[in-house]
């Protein structure tokens, strides 16, 4: 069960059971949708941009514990961040979930997202962990950096 308990850490199970910032926003400025055609999971992320920062963010999803928890934690960590900061965090997360920094400890900057480290042992589930992030940044990816993220894909 060790790899399993590493995958389904308390914090993941908790966010799965009690997702934070769940639902749509009344005054969102944009929304992004993501789906995984492999499994049919769907997520919609709503956010409100004000003076270059993410003032509010929420999500709605039908998905597994990993995608649900990742989306929930994402809304917590990105709230109040500037678009550039948010993109940097996404890039950092992706690097630590995939090959680039796949064997390294999660940096403190990623906070609770470190709980997603267990996903690295389950390559088929990495898409689950990045689904909501893609839904957000694929739509937000107007900047050159955002586009680059898109092209490299997961």
């Amino acid at each position, binding site marked *: 069960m060790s790899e*399993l308990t590493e*995958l*389904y850490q308390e914090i993941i*199970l908790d966010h799965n059971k009690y997702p934070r910032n769940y639902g749509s926003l009344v005054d969102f400025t944009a929304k992004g949708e993501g789906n995984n055609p*492999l499994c*049919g*999971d769907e997520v919609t992320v709503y956010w409100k941009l004000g003076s270059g920062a993410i003032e509010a963010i929420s999500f709605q999803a039908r998905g*597994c*514990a990993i995608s649900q928890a990742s989306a929930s934690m994402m809304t917590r960590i990105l709230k109040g961040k500037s678009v550039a900061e948010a993109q940097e965090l996404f890039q950092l997360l992706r690097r630590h979930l995939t090959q680039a920094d796949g064997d390294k400890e999660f940096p403190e900057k990623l906070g609770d997202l470190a709980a997603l480290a267990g996903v690295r042992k*389950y390559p088929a589930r990495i898409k689950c962990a990045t689904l909501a992030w893609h839904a957000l940044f694929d739509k937000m990816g107007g900047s050159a950096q955002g586009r680059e993220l898109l092209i490299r894909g997961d």
Partner: protein
Amino acid sequence: MTTTIDVASIRRDFPILHTRVGGRPLVYLDNAATTQKPVAVLSALEKHYKESNANIHRGVHYLAERATDAYELARKTVAGFLNAARSEEIIFVRGTTEGINLIAQSYGFPFLGEGDEILLTTMEHHANIVPWQLVCERNGAKLRIIPVTDSGELDMEAFTALLSERTKIVSLAHASNALGTVNPVKAMVDKAHACGAIVLLDGAQAVGHFPVDVQDLDCDFYVFSGHKLFSTTGAGVVYGKYDRLQSMPPFQGGGDMINKVTFEKTTYKRPPGRFEAGTPNIGGAVALGAAIEYLGGLDRLALLEYEHDLLQYATGLLSEIEGLKIYGRASEKVSLISFTLEGVHPHDIATVLDADGIAIRAGHHCTQPLHRHYGISATARASFAYYNTREEAEKLTASLKKIKLLFG
């Protein structure tokens, strides 16, 4: 146990069933995705490549004749297996998906027009939806969908009401890959024919579970995949009534399907050659023949009875788990159970089961419209074959109870 089949002995025929997953014995319950292969099939494949490998229908040398004979013998074996009237009614394709595309393109494209209707059902696999959508886009035909009831059976009154002189094709699963439902296809063929429509049966989930007689069913086409019949991937079958096949243009162009080629005009072979362009999966066809021979050596009705008993037993065990909901409660089912567990996503179920060595499938099983109909995006599916046991069903149940605690 109500039957006498020797499961322990059958399991010895399937080497992969003795795999250990992280130290635990494999419990393979993903047979609706693909079945495992007995030694008889693996040996036939190896023997073919060691002793008979050559291209077919064109060489005059010793090996070419051996390979051609083996391939054509496999065709006869399949014809016997389906009780086709003649072996020329059997076309080898890659699998069910290619088979349905062949019929959609070689029958649908030339014979369907504006306003014609194609009847499908809510429970169809995407492979029996998308090829027909391509026909509709190209020819202006329309899809009509036979709905399913809450228990996962076809609404036969709706079927009768949907049939009309506009109906040209009825295409449906003999058995559903997501619900397990065995559809009343014989009666449906009769009704469709009475309206002048032809019928295609997707037998992917049927042939591995029970005997099929295409003459008795009187269907116009029947398709299945070898890999779901204990043979290899990449070789499957289209059965078509000979006159029907004779009236159809080729599916793909290439070598081996022609009589004569000039730049001005090419003439095509008679069926089945017309529909087998290029070098086919010769080894796969030979292996499929071997799989059918293997099944022929078992008492198929006893296997069916055993699987039915196993399904009842597993259904009973799973039903006792609180929060577990089974999708597909038809009175006639093949041995698979799709379910959801309250508070746990099917993917998480599959991942945790895998840690216990249990292989199941989670997702929409290529039946998104069906899942949408039930208002869900995914289910977990445990699918059994005659080599599975009651003990394995018990292991599944125990693991599921553990998952409930973990995610509780």
